[in-house]
């Protein structure tokens, strides 16, 4: 019996409150704020990986240790922006895809919430690493392992997010998925993970190219043997390599997506993104293979075209989600409307039902039934003492009983405290009279 229900796709109700803004506006906010967020996440993750790599290389060549320090300086800024910029897409996806996002969160709950302590630790480690460069100069193993741990955390966190954004696409799996580890096996998690890592490396390559190439950057004060050109060439090569690999991993991402979200619109959008990447690849290649002084010639064109590629890819990501979820969203909407109708109907029925006959004609007894009977009975102790005991205490002290009901408290060590009931003066008198009548 249970299995039968488990195999069905759950169709929950949505929150019966209107969207705060027109849907299209929310979608635009979601897509763009997410791209902005992921840009800085890419720089944070990519920057950490490059710092680690450069510092390890720096064990042999001091110049790379300096390079690592310089890149580490940027992580602090990029990670703060990554977090703060994440709030807007989080709010927007919560609003647009309430049912889907929260359900995915709940189904991977422990891992979802562990994002918070894990990232906090990773952040603290990046500070500890950055500010202990001199102090730990002679203990490189410890110093590098701080960054190592931080990178390990940064490499794990994306899996949690990818599991969530994947799971939200597949309500048909919600009844059968058992936690995070199981959800990792959704077909599209790992292809998207590698897609993300390559994007992080590619974006960070461009960032490094720009950062160390700025006129205001005092290059000669930091480096003696490494040249601006060498760093820029390495950075460009990283972007080139990572982007070239995307031409392989990208189709894998697309082909491992369940077909339910496919549309020509999606193919067209992603295809346009790919087309913009082609000239960028050409300009980067020209930069790497050309003369040293010409390496930066096309940088802004590269940044612009790759920026367009990312925008189209990000839009494609949304188009897939919208298409994949549209039929289920219709079901949810219908269910929500039907449910709200039932709520109205039940409320009407309750209003029109003949007023419930009070438990007794005696108003005191009716109040006793409603307000006191949860804790008091006639002959036996329930939570508080029985009526018989009350009568024996207060039979000649009606005012005493009245005052106690008005302002009760704790008299007996082995009984819990009695709460105040919020009765009116008339009600207190009625119920006190009723109690004292029981002999």
């Amino acid at each position, binding site marked *: *019996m*249970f299995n039968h229900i*488990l195999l069905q796709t*759950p*169709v929950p109700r949505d*929150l019966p*409150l*209107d*969207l*705060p*803004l027109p849907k299209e506006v929310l979608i635009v906010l979601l897509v763009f704020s997410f791209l902005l967020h992921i840009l800085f996440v890419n720089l944070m993750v990519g920057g950490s990986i490059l710092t680690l790599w450069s510092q390890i290389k720096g064990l042999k060549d001091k110049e790379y240790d300096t390079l690592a320090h310089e890149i580490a300086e940027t992580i*602090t*800024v990029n990670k*703060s*922006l990554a*977090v*703060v*910029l994440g709030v*807007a897409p*989080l*709010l927007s996806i*919560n*609003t647009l895809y309430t*049912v889907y*996002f*929260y*359900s995915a*969160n*709940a189904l991977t709950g422990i891992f*979802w*919430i562990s994002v*918070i302590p894990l990232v*906090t630790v990773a*952040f*603290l480690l990046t500070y500890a690493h950055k500010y202990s460069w001199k102090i730990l100069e002679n203990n490189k193993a410890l110093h590098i392992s701080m960054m190592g741990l931080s990178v390990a955390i940064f490499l794990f966190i994306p899996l949690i997010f990818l599991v969530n954004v994947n799971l939200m696409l597949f309500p048909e799996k*919600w009844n059968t998925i058992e*936690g995070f580890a199981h959800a990792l096996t959704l077909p599209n998690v790992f292809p998207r993970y590698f897609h993300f890592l390559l994007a992080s490396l590619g974006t960070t390559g461009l960032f490094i190219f720009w950062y160390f190439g700025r006129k205001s950057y005092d290059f000669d004060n930091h480096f003696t043997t490494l040249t601006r050109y060498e760093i820029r060439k390495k950075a460009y090569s990283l972007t080139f390599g990572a982007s070239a690999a995307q031409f392989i991993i990208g189709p894998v991402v697309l082909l491992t997506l369940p077909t339910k979200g496919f549309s020509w619109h999606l193919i067209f959008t992603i295809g346009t993104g790919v087309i913009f990447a082609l000239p960028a690849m050409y300009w980067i290649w020209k930069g790497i293979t050309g003369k040293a002084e010409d390496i930066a010639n096309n940088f802004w064109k590269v940044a612009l075209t790759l920026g367009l590629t990312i925008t189209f890819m990000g839009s494609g990501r949304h188009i897939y989600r919208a298409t994949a979820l549209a039929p289920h969203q219709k079901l949810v909407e219908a269910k929500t409307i039907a*449910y709200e109708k*039932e*709520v109205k109907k*039940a*409320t009407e029925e*309750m209003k029109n039902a003949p007023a419930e006959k009070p438990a007794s004609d005696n108003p005191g007894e009716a109040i006793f039934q*409603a*307000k006191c*009977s*949860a*804790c008091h009975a006639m002959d036996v102790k*329930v*939570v508080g003492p029985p009526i018989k005991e009350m009568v024996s205490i207060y039979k000649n002290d009606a005012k005493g009983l009245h005052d106690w009901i008005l*302002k009760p*408290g704790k008299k007996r060590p*082995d009984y*819990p*405290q009695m*709460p*105040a*009931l*919020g*009765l009116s003066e008339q009600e207190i008198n009625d119920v006190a009279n009723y109690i004292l009548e029981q002999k």
Partner: protein
Amino acid sequence: MDFPIFHLDFMGDRLLIAIIAVLHVLINHGLAVGFIPLVTWIEYLGFKKGGKNAIVNNEWDQLAHRLMTVAFIITTTIGAMTGVGIWFASSLVNPASIGSLIRVFYGAWFVEWTVFVTEVVLILLYYLSWKRSLGSIEAKAKHIKLGAALSIFSWITMSIIVSILGFMMDTGSWVENKTFIAGFTNPIYIPQLAFRTPLAALMAGAIGLFLTKLFTKNGSSFQQDSSKKIALWMLLMLPFTLAGALAYYFKIPELMIGNLPVAVGTMDFQSWYDLLVKFIIGALTTVFLIAGTVYFKPKLKIPTIVYILPVIGMLGFAGIFERIREFIRKPYVIGNYMYSNTLRKEDYPLFKRDGVLAHATYSPVKEVTEENKLVAGEQVFMISCSRCHTTRGINSVVDKFENMYSLKAGEKLNGDLMKNYIKHIENARYFMPPFPGNEAELGALVEYIKHIQEDGTPIDHQATSMR
């Protein structure tokens, strides 16, 4: 609620949110909103004391920089992540309520977000450009202005969030007209803001005084001078905090009238309320004594450990106010709209008619039968109790009943009594929401609770929950 249910059966879901949220509030108030104006002021004092030949007085400037280092590292790690953590935790524990809040407050939160982004950019600029600002008088003057701008933005961030907190306690006219403005201008907004602003400054002063003691040379005249300034800051904020606390204190019973029968402001609540008074007096007196001594008797030698007292006092003071705020919200999570079990008030007639299971998408059973009553009972527990109670962990439902009936070890719960109690629960305990389900579900719930009491373990069949 119509989401898969996330449940922590040992620590309880409430505690998860409480830990994250309280940590966030303490850091936000003590190390950001109140602290940054203090640091900026100290930096300004160092600038003024620079004299003719120097841009700044180094001792003062270094103190300001060190204080800011502490604030910078903590706020951009634990502070920022607990802020996001509140979203994450509440989306797990109370998706229906946080989802509803976002739909009402999306605009406010979006504005908040833009202010917040500005705040983060400013804090990065302010802290990371400190060294560069020592290059010229103009650069330093600009840097101090940056600190002032940052102070303003931190305060605006808080002032927007406070509106949402106020809304959760008292929805004002929103329940009727459901507009954003009605939600934003809820009646408790101004008292809360008037209270939190000096509170933050005073917390920051307490932390600042303690750190200054650590960061300066013991017995030096600079230690005396700088501590004296911070003590002055605290003494100035003290009357405002007291006034704000009192305003808030007297506003609370008025608020309760909206939610609760008039006479209820006694006993259970009174015990919290009395505790609150003790905290107000205790913490503010400690602050007064220590700040007063430092200010009026700067030469007196006070051991470092004593400087911790105002910090602890102020953190406790702020913490107890958060606890009270949570407490007076009950039995609602969103005043008069959604109960703390995250079921809407207006859905109750339907639940009473059909039962909660019939409308619970994720429950494997939709109706109670003799065979499934434990599974059904568990589902009823998850839907109507588990947001606040665990089976055998913190705030366990079994413990609650055992204590209430004063059972001795080994005594069994009485199902009939429990049924009668749960049926009238909102009358017996005004902070509890009414039981939402029908008769059969009540029976199943009681069977389930009795089963846990006897067996010691929740049953195994947790199809869509407790993962």
